[in-house]
């Protein structure tokens, strides 16, 4: 299925809502849990979730039952956001190739510090346009998918994933500089952003509890 056809599936409000539920959990979500959160029946949720798997937007797997042995039932089907990415641009655009070439140039020149300075300045410009807004809202608007954990803001999604897989050291350093610049532009302490990478998430965390939510997990 092509990108446009896959993304068009999300036009359906139920599918869109199920996709959002699964994506926002950052891990495996059962059919019943997704159905409850989206406010639809399990059967309908199952049908739409499987359509999203066919389209490559979600992946499915099975969670082993908690009790073992006879009577413990079948493993439960679970869903998570697919690792691959889908995008449509009209007219066609390709910034990833350009980013990759520029990253190679930075590497060859050993110009990492200049790249970080430029990223910080760009972050400050972006932040300046949102002065006074809470940082997590601005980060959410830029696709970082922030969530609260242990008194800090973690970021579920890396907006620069393809480039970061290719040159993690450069891209993660630039991303940190960008986030620090963003805080500076917002009128916050830039040092709140620091590196704390872990598998499957953005490498940056923002210290300090978010203002919009008080829940922690």
């Amino acid at each position, binding site marked *: 299925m092509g990108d446009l056809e896959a993304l068009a599936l999300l036009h359906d409000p139920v599918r869109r809502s199920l996709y959002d539920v699964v994506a926002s959990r950052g891990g495996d979500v059962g059919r019943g849990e997704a159905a409850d959160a989206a406010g639809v029946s399990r059967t309908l949720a199952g049908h739409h979730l499987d359509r999203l798997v066919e389209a490559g937007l979600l992946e499915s797997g099975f969670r082993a039952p908690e009790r073992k042995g006879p009577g413990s039932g079948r493993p439960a089907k679970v869903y998570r956001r697919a690792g691959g990415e889908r995008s449509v641009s009209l007219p066609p655009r390709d910034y990833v190739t350009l980013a990759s070439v520029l990253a190679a140039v930075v590497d060859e020149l050993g110009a990492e510090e200049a790249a970080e300075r430029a990223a910080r300045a760009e972050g400050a410009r972006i932040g300046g346009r949102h002065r006074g807004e809470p940082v997590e809202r601005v980060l959410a608007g830029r696709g970082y998918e922030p969530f609260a954990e242990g008194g800090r803001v973690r970021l579920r999604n890396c907006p620069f994933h393809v480039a970061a897989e*290719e040159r*993690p*050291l450069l891209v993660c350093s630039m991303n940190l500089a960008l986030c620090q610049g963003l805080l500076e532009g917002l009128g916050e302490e830039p040092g709140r952003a620091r590196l704390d*990478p872990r598998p499957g998430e953005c490498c940056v965390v923002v210290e300090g509890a978010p203002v919009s939510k008080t829940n922690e997990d």
Partner: protein
Amino acid sequence: MHLAQLNVAHMRAPVDSPELAEFVALLEPVNALADSTPGFVWRLKESESDPTATVVHDYGDHLLINFSVWESREALWNFVYRSPHLDALRRRREWFLRVAEPYMVMWWTPEGEIPSLAEGMRRLERLRAGGPGPEAFTFQDFYDASEAAHLPAAAEARK
């Protein structure tokens, strides 16, 4: 198959100098982190009792060698780039000279066999001389174990 990696770094000053002190202070926690990372198999240690002891070798003064074996690309990747190790890596210019040639090499090695340091240095030379291939490659130009397994070149390089 397991994934072996070797990397070298040219220190700006002797390892016991004040310039390298902050790096040396990171050796114990970062090595402990490596040892406890899921998928870690082995690393070359100079001493079992002194966690700050760096590998002693004949490949030149001021050359720091790091040599380890992992269960998979993902395991090694998660340690190098998805752990507090990344922050230490970011600071590399404070302690090490910038080199234009490759400083890290990877290759597949049979499970249970620990490759020798001499083999690792040969693999690095091979990468530097001939570019990435199934017997000496990098994260950017990676070869799966299946691509590397039955190549005569890989068997030759182990000798």
